[in-house]
């Protein structure tokens, strides 16, 4: 009976077939990522080991000697054929690793890269944007100054510099991406706060004795939160792609972490030798996930943004 805006938004999205399809794809990918995070106990010589995930247990295969095409029985190394120990759905790479397994390992990395920097950036953007928009005056000036300085430094150079300082790694990359990417959302939140703080319900709450803290986080924040949700879903695909680019230029995640960027990076040598499956697998995974997220994010924005929804 009582319907919140969120429930109405869910209803709207459910009417959009493409968005539902996108959401399903995201769920499948998310499941893969989760399976890659749940460790599986294995009894070894020195007691129980937890270093393999469910995904590893299911898909990891003994490495071959070198490249092999999809579903081949034999591979070629130094112009000599060698027999494969098992079948590989999308072949193996130069180290003989199963390409499908590598691509699946990339899912967890993609999700972490797509979500964690957004959360870090979200915290910066929400707090600074709310404060700047609500208090105005010198607080606004200082915060605007900070983000104008930050946004006038070329992003990629700043990222590289930060990664140099913190050393390479998945989580370091998340922090670096988060700290450098909050400006856009912060601007949006500041602008929306300027509007919302003058709404009569905020005035009415103040007339009932609400404190600044309560007004900011209880009355204004929920009304600008749609911006955060929209921005986070739209940023997801951009972040996932930026990881592949950063890894490609050599400042992304360290070797040993699943990464579509590294698979694509290898391909610039492989393609000349007609080894196409590594690149294809990474690109296909990237493409499907990004497309699914974009479809879903678009529908979500249509459902949440009051301007597009036609309520205001």
């Amino acid at each position, binding site marked *: 009976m009582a319907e919140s805006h969120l429930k109405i938004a869910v209803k709207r999205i459910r009417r959009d077939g493409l968005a539902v399809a996108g959401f399903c794809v995201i769920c499948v990918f998310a499941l893969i990522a989760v399976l890659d995070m749940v460790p599986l106990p294995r009894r070894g010589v020195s007691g129980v080991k937890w270093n393999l995930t469910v995904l590893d247990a299911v898909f990891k295969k003994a490495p071959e000697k070198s490249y092999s095409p999809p579903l081949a029985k034999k591979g070629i190394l130094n112009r000599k054929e060698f027999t494969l120990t098992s079948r590989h759905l999308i072949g193996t790479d130069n180290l003989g690793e199963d390409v499908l397994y590598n691509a699946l390992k990339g899912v967890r990395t993609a999700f972490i890269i797509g979500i964690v920097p957004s959360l870090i950036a979200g915290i910066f953007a929400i707090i600074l944007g709310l404060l700047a928009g609500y208090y105005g005056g010198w607080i606004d000036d200082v915060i605007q100054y900070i983000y104008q300085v930050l946004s006038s430094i070329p992003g990629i150079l700043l990222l590289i510099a930060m990664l140099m300082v913190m050393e390479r790694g998945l989580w370091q990359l998340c922090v670096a991406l988060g700290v450098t990417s909050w400006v856009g959302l912060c601007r949006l939140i500041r602008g929306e706060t300027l509007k919302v703080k003058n709404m009569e*319900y905020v005035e009415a709450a103040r*007339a*009932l*004795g609400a404190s600044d803290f309560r007004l900011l986080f209880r009355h204004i924040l929920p009304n600008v939160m749609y911006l955060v949700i929209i921005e986070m879903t739209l940023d997801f695909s951009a972040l996932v792609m930026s990881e592949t680019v950063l890894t490609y230029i050599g400042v992304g995640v360290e070797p040993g972490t699943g990464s579509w960027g590294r698979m694509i990076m290898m391909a610039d040598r492989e393609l000349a030798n007609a080894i196409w499956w590594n690149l294809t697998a990474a690109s296909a995974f990237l493409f499907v996930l990004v497309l699914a997220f974009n479809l879903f994010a678009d529908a979500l924005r249509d459902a949440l943004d009051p301007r597009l929804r036609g309520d205001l």
Partner: protein
Amino acid sequence: MIDDGLSDTAETVLEIENLRTHFFTGEGPARAVDGVSVSVGKKRTLGLVGESGCGKTVTALSILKLIPSPPGRIVGGSITLSGKEILPLSEVEMRDIRGKLASMIFQEPMTSLNPVFTIGTQIMEAVRIHTDMGRAEAREIAVEYLAKVGIPEARRMMLQYPHQLSGGMKQRVMIAMALCLKPPLLIADEPTTALDVTIQAGILRLIQDMQAESGTAVLLITHDLGIVAEMADEVAVMYAGKIVESGPCISIFSSFVHPYTEGLFKSLPGRTEKGSRLYTIAGSVPSATGFPPGCRFHTRCPLAIEKCNLEEPLLVEVGGDHRCACWVRAGEPA
């Protein structure tokens, strides 16, 4: 000033003396409220009347110190709520006053409720800001007040979101929120302007009923003389930041003195012959940054004499509790 003779019979809930609230804008200070004195006693209703931009709302916001600052600032005078002088109080101290000693209902019920919370949550919040009640207790109070303001099935309606209610229902919810802490003063800033006529009467009656029940004093701000006639015990007419005429409702309606008040009454539709044009007061309210010297109404006044341009008239008594500031109608005999 209009409580003379009344202060003996009823305790004064709101006393404003010589309030001056100015806005410091790029074009110089705007004297939006410039020396207003009114008071309201327990169970009484004061109607504050005037056209748009004359300072009614700024007066109301000043009482809760809700003037946006900068650019606004209360530069002088005193405001006493239930015997407590509030102008020296800090923002933190004011939070205790707002909602407890005085609360306010706004003109726009459509936007006065937060769209992301149920109305129950919002009333409970009002209760819980000022008391240390638990959720359950606060919920009971919210249900009680929703029922009091005439919302059917109050317990079920607690779970409704604002967009599911009509304007009239929302204004009832606002009244419940404003009154659930039993404040001695209710400020109603054009409470029915945004509602259609059939709903207006219901909301006004509700305010009257609640007032009779709890003894709340009401400061009713409106530009609608019909509402004033219905509701108010006393009337103060504002023009360009000043009170130009004040007195008991009956006295003002039967024998208004100030030419501006006269203009307001003449512009009422019912007073003109069918088919003839409605009366209008020529010109419009002067900008608050550039009020004319002398009587602020003299530029639009049909009776203006030379003195009006030079000296500012003061409120003088023209008959039991009835005061007027006009050189022509209420000036000392020259």
